């Protein structure tokens, strides 16, 4: 006997789709072996983050840390598994809650306070094209030692990495997001990459500060329990990385 989930109506399962389009729509949302690129919901957004895979909501959603049902409802309806919730009140000024879902229920949620913010518009120079896959760099040993920082790192990678591609145009590596954990704060900087001539094949990198830069402070967290997190990490057995890089040398797995 099966427990019926409150958010799924019985009609979801039994209505046979009448058109091919509806069938494709339902198949896209089914659990699959290789998943779709994750989409994000932005709620009451304060700043703009260049990410083309966003859905923008202005509805009045209650606080995520108290009640997650409205968030989960929106996630189910729009088929988005990442969310970003911005708010401001006296107790928690300039608040940003970044989170992700597993099976349309909240998996991890981390509340960050924005101490300093420089937007895209404040820095006047040319930007990189929208939709560029960014290079992500995390600096600082806190990202490995502290459990909450580790989850935050995983969350940020999930958020910003974009679609998984098999090949990449080397000249198109224009965008880098650099996160530094230092003195209890997280400094996020976005740079535009300029490839200059050097003596050898590898180009010399020069960086130009481009996009939004944030100084973040971690506030509350709502992390998934170990076993739920392990369940969400389970991958199908077919595909696995053939080798991995450690200390700049490929090591056969």
């Amino acid at each position, binding site marked *: *006997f099966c427990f019926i989930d*409150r958010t799924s109506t*019985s009609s979801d*399962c*039994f209505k046979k789709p009448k058109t091919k389009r509806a069938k494709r729509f339902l198949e896209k949302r*089914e*659990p699959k072996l290789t998943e*779709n690129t994750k989409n994000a919901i932005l709620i009451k957004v304060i700043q703009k983050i260049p990410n083309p895979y966003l859905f923008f909501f202005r509805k009045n959603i209650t606080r995520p840390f108290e*009640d*997650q049902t409205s968030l989960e409802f929106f996630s189910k309806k729009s088929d988005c598994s990442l969310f970003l919730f911005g708010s401001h009140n006296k107790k928690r000024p300039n608040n940003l809650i970044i989170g992700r879902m*597993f*099976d349309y229920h*909240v998996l991890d949620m981390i509340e960050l306070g924005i101490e300093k913010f420089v937007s895209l518009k404040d820095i006047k120079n040319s930007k990189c094209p929208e939709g560029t*896959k960014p*290079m*992500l*760099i*995390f*600096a*600082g040993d806190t990202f*490995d030692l502290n459990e909450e920082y580790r989850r935050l790192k995983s969350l940020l990678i999930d958020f910003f*990495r974009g679609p*998984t591609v*098999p*090949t*990449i*145009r*080397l*000249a*198109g*590596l224009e965008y*880098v997001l*650099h996160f*530094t954990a*230092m003195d209890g704060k997280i*400094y996020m*900087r976005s*740079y535009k990459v300029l490839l200059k001539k*050097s*003596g*050898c*094949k590898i*180009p*010399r*990198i020069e*960086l130009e500060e481009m996009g939004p830069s944030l100084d973040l402070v971690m506030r509350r967290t709502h*992390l*998934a329990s170990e*076993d*739920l997190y392990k*369940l*969400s990490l389970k*991958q*199908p057995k077919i595909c696995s*990385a*053939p080798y*991995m*890089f450690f*200390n*700049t040398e490929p090591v056969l797995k």
Partner: protein
Amino acid sequence: MAALCVEELLARAEQREAEPHRSVAVQKELELEFDLGNLLALDRNPPRAAGAQRESRLRSLARDNTQLLVAQLWGLPAGRAEGATGPLVAQLPEPFYRLPREKPLPRPRPPTRWEQFARLKGIRRRKRTSLVWDEAAKQWRRRWGYARAGGDPARDWLIEVPAGADPNEDQFAKRLRDKREKVARNEFNRLRNIARGALPGRGLHPTGHQSRAELGRATQVARVSTASLGRFQPRLPKEPAAPPPRGGKKRRFEPLLGDLAAERSRQLELLRGLGSKKPPLDLTRAVNKQLREEDAQAAAGKGKKRGQRGKRGRQRPGGGKGPAGGKGKKGGARRQQQRPAGRKRS
């Protein structure tokens, strides 16, 4: 000659030193970790960018890290996309850093009735053509839809009565009935496949089609799904009374101020037993009881064998409800354990 060479070398060294902005070498205490599939680099060195010149120090740290990452990416096997003049494109490896999935893994589903049959008979799927030859119209027509082969409405004005059929039977009505029956049977089979979990409906039962046993199980599970596990749920007027609680794990105590007469008689019986000289164990009775139990077990064993042969598949009404109650309780506990982190389930 040697002096000239040395001068050249010194000049070159000076030149190299004067152009630090052309070098791609970066010094780091701890090596970085790379996941090129995600364009990711992890730097474990404690950052030294505190203080007044934080922005410039952060930028130089970022520059160094990006330089290392780009050096790795340039080391990947690369080719030219779209011919010899296309852009230089590198082959990325699979992303290594494990990130949680969006949705759980799809569960392996049992095959549908048709799939089982096809596997048995060795029937393989053949791709159908979209056009079919229509003999009457002598042209290629669609398989279904507007102006389909064999779908011309004009041909339906006459149906021949088949050889063995009743001449007074309405063939048009019969055709309509047959079509309706076919559609209903197809729908029934589809729902049966969903109930078995062979289709993505995942075993949930549609309302109105549940059997009596399933409804009984559903009500039992619903009853036990309260915070007190169903102890204080009122029963409907015609609902059967609660089955006696299983086990005897808890001791049962009589109420303090119950039946005074019964208590009195019980105490007197006890005293009489203590006072009499009879031994507490009546040997003959004990032996008879044991013999009777053994006979009953032997009889039950014989009866079960006979019962299994004849009454296979028929459920015992008591057996249907009991395990379902237990299942509900266990299921609820397991469910709660899986999702402890702040989820409200009303």
